[in-house]
């Protein structure tokens, strides 16, 4: 297990620090020229920071780069920006691989060339007639024994589209390259000038299985921009909904993993129990995915005492059932044998590529926004962070199981501890020329929303980072040296979002 070392306070004039879910004037962000920003960001990462977001803000015909870093041990976020850049700047990826996807994205969105980037290609856009994402060329391994396997975008099964290219020597995968972008809906492009009437609903569907986490991050950003806070009871309802979302998805994942190793008792039971958890979300707000619950300023609906009691009763039953179903699975040596030492991502690799969420915690990294950067209800109550060393499929399944138990316990405690008061308050106008950041620990991992307002208080730039944006690289690494037949369980053990990445 490795915890980032406690950082010493930054040198004056370097990054500006702020807490999760707060805002500061855009003018207060320290300005570096681009090469200096790259160097300073690299230095902070070397001191234990993580890159939460790296993106461009258009300014005339130039672009400013913005870095958002997290010092997990200090519960602080560090931000800085560059002076307007045109053309190119030296790539951060060369020294710090966790920036590689961000720099490809900046190149695609703002046409800024990160010089020295080792694998510069589109992240999600199409450059053809609009038929398919421009995947350019794939990394190729040559040799008489080598063969290439191409899968997707339409896969077998009811799942989202993506394209996977395996370079194989027999069964062994030498390299996997993942090309995404098929679900691209231009989410970030339609946000400037907002919030619009549909914005809240678009946030809820950035990744449908992460509705509560994205909606909460968005609400936190708007509240930070308005300088207000949602009432305590609303924060309690949000936490309850967020943990229900986690329970449903982790249960589904355990069932799917069992299904992929043909362990049907757990697979069938978990498929059903997942639905029971989704129905608990529907009990709270009418929708199985938590739509129309979280609103800027609070929540649209209250979770009254009588409803909370009903929720608690049904929750206990579902938790008991998932306990039994997962018990069969953990007891079976055949299941453990299929999961252990398969799809390993090593701790140092995980740190280097900036894994977050379940995938990071399964590599022994203690990373959990609820614990590291608590906002809302998590300032008062926390579930223990679930960590497991190993970095293999087994560890990722195990972390899910631990979280199921701990979130279940957390929910049972919190449902009995409702604060009184209203669940929403009118939200004031967003402050002009202001920059706000909000992190929320969704069930997959860290959801990061960043907003910058213009002189009228409308969005000038809105950046969304779904945990999948960090973690797809982890799946590619997990496949190195694996049998290609192990791809399904590796993929399921990460269970990343396509639409959350494609935006």
């Amino acid at each position, binding site marked *: 297990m490795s915890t980032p070392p406690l950082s010493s306070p930054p040198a004056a004039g370097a990054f500006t620090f702020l807490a999760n879910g707060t805002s500061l004037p855009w003018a207060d962000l320290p300005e570096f020229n681009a090469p200096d920003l790259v160097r300073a960001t690299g230095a902070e990462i070397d001191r234990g920071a993580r890159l939460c977001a790296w993106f461009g803000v258009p300014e005339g015909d130039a672009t400013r780069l913005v870095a958002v870093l997290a010092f997990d041990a200090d519960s602080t976020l560090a931000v800085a920006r560059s002076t307007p850049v045109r053309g190119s700047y030296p790539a951060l990826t060369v020294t710090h691989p966790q920036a590689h996807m961000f720099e490809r994205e900046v190149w695609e969105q703002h046409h800024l060339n990160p010089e020295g980037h080792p694998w510069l290609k589109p992240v999600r856009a199409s450059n053809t007639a609009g038929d398919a994402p421009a995947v350019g060329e794939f990394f190729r391994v040559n040799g008489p024994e080598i063969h290439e396997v191409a899968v997707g975008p339409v896969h077998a099964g009811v799942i*989202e589209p993506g394209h996977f290219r395996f370079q194989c020597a027999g069964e062994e995968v030498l390299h996997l390259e993942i090309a995404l972008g098929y679900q691209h809906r231009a989410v970030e492009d*339609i946000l400037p000038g907002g919030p619009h009437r549909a914005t809240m609903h678009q946030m809820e569907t950035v990744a449908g299985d992460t509705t509560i986490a994205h909606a909460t991050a968005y609400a936190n950003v708007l509240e930070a921009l308005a300088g207000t806070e949602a009432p305590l009871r609303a924060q309690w309802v949000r936490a309850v909904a967020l943990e229900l979302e986690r329970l449903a998805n982790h249960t589904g994942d355990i069932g799917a993993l069992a299904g992929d190793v043909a362990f049907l008792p757990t697979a069938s039971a978990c498929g059903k129990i997942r639905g029971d958890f989704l129905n608990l979300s529907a009990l709270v707000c009418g929708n199985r995915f938590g*739509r129309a619950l979280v609103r800027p300023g609070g929540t649209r609906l209250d979770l009254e005492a009588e409803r909370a009691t009903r929720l608690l009763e049904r929750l206990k039953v579902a938790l008991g059932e998932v306990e039994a179903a997962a018990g069969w699975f953990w007891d079976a040596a055949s299941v453990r044998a299929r999961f252990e030492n398969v799809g390993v991502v090593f701790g140092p690799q995980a740190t280097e590529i900036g894994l977050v969420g379940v995938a990071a915690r399964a590599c022994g990294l203690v990373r959990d926004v609820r614990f590291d950067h608590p906002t809302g209800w998590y300032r008062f109550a926390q579930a223990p962070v679930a960590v497991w060393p190993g970095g293999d499929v087994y560890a990722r399944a195990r972390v899910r199981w631990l979280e199921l138990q701990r979130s279940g316990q957390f929910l049972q405690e919190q449902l009995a501890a409702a604060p009184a008061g209203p669940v929403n308050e009118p939200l004031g106008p967003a402050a002009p020329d202001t920059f706000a950041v909000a992190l929320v620990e969704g069930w997959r991992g860290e959801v990061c929303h960043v907003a910058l307002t213009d002189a009228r208080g409308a969005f000038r730039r809105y950046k969304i980072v779904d945990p999948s944006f960090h973690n797809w690289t982890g799946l590619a690494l997990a496949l190195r040296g694996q049998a290609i037949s192990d791809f399904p369980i590796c993929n399921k053990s990460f269970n990343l*979002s396509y639409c959350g990445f494609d935006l």
Partner: protein
Amino acid sequence: MFVFDTLTHRLKRGCETMGYPQAPAPALPDRHGGALRVDAAKCSDGCQQCVEVCPTGAITRPAGQPLALDLGKCIFCQACVEVCPPKAITQTNDHRMAVRNRGDLLLGAPGQEEVRLAAALDKKLLKLFGRSLRLRVVSAGGCGGCEADVNVLGTIGWDLSRFGINYVASPRHADGVLVTGCVSRNMSLALKKTYDAVPEPKLVIAVGACAINGGPFIGSPEVLNGASAVVPVDLYIPGCPPHPLTILDGLLRLLDRLEEGKR
């Protein structure tokens, strides 16, 4: 050890598949709301409140004309229901809302207060698909919500296969395509190719507000506002996402598998 545990639990749980459609349908959550009903005659003069709160432009009321609500564009956020003082727009708590024609989702005109539910396939197609329907599911710009609730029909609780309906891996094995998502430009070719690979005669089922008309992303430059931009749609199932019961109702209605004389 675990074999006995598993067997004991299995026996204890009994049959988990619901009795529907022979038994009554499972209850919808009390806050769900179900399909909408529009009584345009109840509208107050000049009131535009519902039009102003609708996030997807599903509601229109041009001057001098009655209120019109397009349930295909609706994402069921309930904002219009909450702001309507004379209760011209109400919830029916009815899970049934699948239709065969896009126009049947337009509510508000006299005699069109509620959706006109889907009619079954014609005799020839019923003979082909009525007892065995294989679907290739294509997620094209979906958020994962519809996909999850389409998937859930395959689990033991709903057990879609008891109706002879299955999801299959290859379009060559399929009788139709089930589309979710607003159809991103980047998925249009893949959707078209999948459709083309399904042998004739074939069906297309659009599940969810996105697949019908773009949902929350209607009008975004990277989306084509629904499946009909690429393939001809035979069944529209509204919702964001539709409740599994709504999807199942649509499929069974299409295959004439519901013993239901009314409506």
